[in-house]
């Protein structure tokens, strides 16, 4: 009895001490706005296993340390918008250019033209330097070998191959509401149909019964295809080659009609706390200094800078493929309308 009472007493005291302890610790947890002179803060849309080696190489080259967190393109943009009045980072790194296009409407970026600006083809740079491309990423078809064999098919070589009944409920591809991959895919379909919207939408509606799932992220369907949970899908080449590298038995193919490609960007944020360092990162990332390192770290992007040669094994995959860029002006002018129509007619018929 006495022991119990004693214990209770002690416990009550311990509980009472908790807030004090808490406050003592809070003192340490409140920010010390990590501002060593040579530290740059970045939101990376590229996955950590690609971003980390790039930033380490950057530090080696310039002595500037990069602190970064990785988010999907949508999450990164939502954060940058919410933090607009008091930005937490200096640079938004990687991610499809159309994410950056959405950011321009929100007035997020500080225009900057790095030394490479003039050497880049126009589709790899925003005219005012709101964003600059650091890589190019074509779409591909990726199919599961076992599925193809079991159904007596061949790896799809035409957009129409995907309409085959064998694919019923077995395709996965990205959702246009959330994924730049999907938008690039839809504009590819428009392009091969001579921008005849009705024809393009007829095709997409015909494809709909074969689609098992429209995934939230562009690469969301790669693992299911690798595992055979889905038979095939349309993905960016980086994601597809990554799946293959993990050991999944998949085949990458290209449609004879052609398929689109999308650029990956970088931008300086308006109100950045370390703009000078941010510009240095942009200088480096848009130049052969960074893009020449893609091959070393098995990052299967196509370099945006014309002076960087394509890595041979990647070149072999792309050989003979008909790839066309998506016209930025046309896509920019029609994106919202086309996506809305896709939601209304294809996603929720």
């Amino acid at each position, binding site marked *: 009895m006495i022991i*119990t*009472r004693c*214990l*209770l*007493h002690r416990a*009550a*005291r311990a*509980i*009472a*001490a*908790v*807030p*004090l302890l*808490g406050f003592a610790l*809070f003192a340490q*947890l*409140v*920010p010390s706005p*990590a501002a060593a002179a040579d530290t740059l803060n970045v939101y990376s849309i590229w*996955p*950590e*296993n690609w971003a980390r080696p790039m930033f380490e190489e950057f530090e080696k080259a310039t002595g500037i340390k990069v602190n*970064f*967190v*990785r988010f*999907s393109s*949508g*999450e990164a*943009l*939502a*954060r940058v918008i*919410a*933090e607009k*009045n*008091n930005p*937490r980072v200096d640079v938004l790194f990687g991610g499809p250019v159309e994410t950056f296009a*959405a950011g321009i409407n929100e007035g997020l970026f500080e225009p900057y033209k790095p030394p490479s600006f003039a050497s880049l083809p126009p589709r790899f740079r925003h005219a005012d330097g709101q964003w600059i491309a650091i890589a190019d990423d074509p779409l591909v078809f990726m199919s599961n070998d076992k599925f193809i064999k079991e159904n007596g098919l061949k790896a799809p070589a035409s957009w129409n191959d995907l309409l085959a009944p064998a694919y019923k*409920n*077995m395709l996965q591809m990205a*959702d246009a*509401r*959330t*994924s730049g991959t999907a938008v690039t895919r839809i504009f590819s379909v428009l392009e091969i149909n001579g921008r005849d919207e009705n024809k393009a939408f007829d095709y997409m509606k015909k494809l709909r019964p074969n*689609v*098992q*799932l429209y995934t*939230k992220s562009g*690469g969301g369907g790669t693992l*299911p295809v*690798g*595992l055979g*949970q*889905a038979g095939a899908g349309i993905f960016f080449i980086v*994601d597809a080659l*990554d*799946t293959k590298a*993990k050991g*999944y*038995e998949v085949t990458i193919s290209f449609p004879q009609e052609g398929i689109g490609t999308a650029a990956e960007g970088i931008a300086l944020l308006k109100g950045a706390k370390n703009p000078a360092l941010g510009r240095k990162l942009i200088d480096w990332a848009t130049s052969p200094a960074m893009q020449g390192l893609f091959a070393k770290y098995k990052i299967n992007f196509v370099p945006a800078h014309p002076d960087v040669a394509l890595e041979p094994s990647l070149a072999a995959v792309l050989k003979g493929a008909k790839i066309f860029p998506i016209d930025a002006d046309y896509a920019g002018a029609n994106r919202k309308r086309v996506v809305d129509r896709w939601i209304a007619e294809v*996603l929720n018929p």
Partner: protein
Amino acid sequence: MSATGRWAAATMGMRNDPAVAAAVFVLWALLALFVVYPLAMLFVRVLTDHGGFTTAGLAAVLFDRHQLRAFRNSLLLALLVGSAGTVLGFLFAFTAARGRLPRGLLTAIDAAVLLPLVSPPFTTAIAMIFSFGPRGLITYDLLGLKGVTVYGLTSTLFSEVLTFFPIAYLTLRPLLAAIDSNVEGMAFSLGASRWRVFRTVTLPLTIPGLANAFLLLFAASLADFATPLILAGNNFPVLPTQAYLQITGLFDLRGGAALSFALLLPALAVFLLQRYWVSRRYYVTITGKGAGQTPFDSIAPGMRTVLLAACAVVALVVVYFYALLLYASLVVALGANHAFTLQHYRVIFTDGLKAIRDTLIIAGLAMPLGGLYGILLGYLVTKKSFAGRRTMELVSMINYALPGTIVGIAYLIAFNDPPLELTGTALIIIACYIFRYGPTGIRATVALLQQIDKSLEEASQGLGAGSGATFRRVTLPLIMPAFFAGLGVVFIRSMTAISATIFLVSISWTLITVKILENITELSLGPAAAFSVLVVAIVFVVIAIIGRVLRLFRAPGAVPMTSLLGG
């Protein structure tokens, strides 16, 4: 005056006690800062565009026929998850509390039940796809089915029920244990059948608990976005996922926030319904008039076997899912290369070490504060009368009821600018956890206190004990189980939550769950599984410790519920 005395006085106090007033004031200040203020800021953001007031575009989003369908789907899913999860939780709680199981079996059931609760949100969903997809281990390899689809209401429901029913179990088990089985014994000896005793004595006494469990599950399902994100597919959209997509996909923060505010209505409606329904009943079973324990065998032997078998089936499903997870963490690439490796663990203890450290610090701080907040608020709103009591209870539930995405965005907007510049700190994550997951402790405290007769406290005071002493020696031991339930849930959630905190992690503070999500999106199932296994292991250790501590509180006259959390 010692710190203990001061605190006890602050919470106990008599009517018009300045200490109660002070505690109420502090709680209101905290609620205002961490619940009302962020939401108000978000609300302002929804209703303004480029500096001017506007509602333009909101109606189009809110009354779009697909969003209305998503709204209906959300309600349907929450109703089903609430009902099924409460039934399942009751089944387990009843079997555990009344089944006279051997200790070892009890611990095993506890462990299996807690697994889904203590694992990061994506894990069950991923295991579902592995098992029930077109090429799933069960559907294809075992049953040879082809062309099955795993996406939709059924699998979302299945996965959410498995994930959330432990909440019902945790709410109901202490309650059932607290029902004096002498009451049941008396009814039995007066000639009632076991079934009649169950129906007319046990069940009615459990009603506040059932209502609580239903409310918690309903709200949890309504706010859950991780499971539907993976499993709902294209034909069963739900609102939290739609809101998330509106914000992160269509970059429409206003529309997404507006959609989330729509979720507040059903959440509050259920809460009010439950308050009204529960408060009309009388539940006191813990009185001072204690009697010797002459335990009543409330389950017939045949029934006991049936109940145990039902529990075993559910437990086996859970164990199977997690065995799969463990396996995935130990092979090179699940589905492609099944060679054994420890590489994934090496990765998480090198590259992932910072996330592990940060998560432990944050969860370690959120846990005691959240537990304390839970009993303090629960105690005040149940036992003290002050103006705005009901409102306080209602406000304290808001962050729990809202989808995490919205709470996260609201915090980000509210605390990004001076003077309350908390973005990028651990504090913002800790506050988010306390006010988002503390309500479980509040509900547990309220439910337990509703079972305690006022005469106990009155007797103590009548015998000359001061209000502080009464609180310390009578009330505190009685609500300790609720404190530890609250503690446990806040810790578990701090280790596993993602929807709100994905917007609150920063360059200085990151979390394991964010790493898991990242690994899943990068197709690195191995590290994702290894991280999940680690989280489960850590949580189990902490909960075992809580269970040990809880055992110290078996004071005479207090509720014997030593194994509340499987200790």
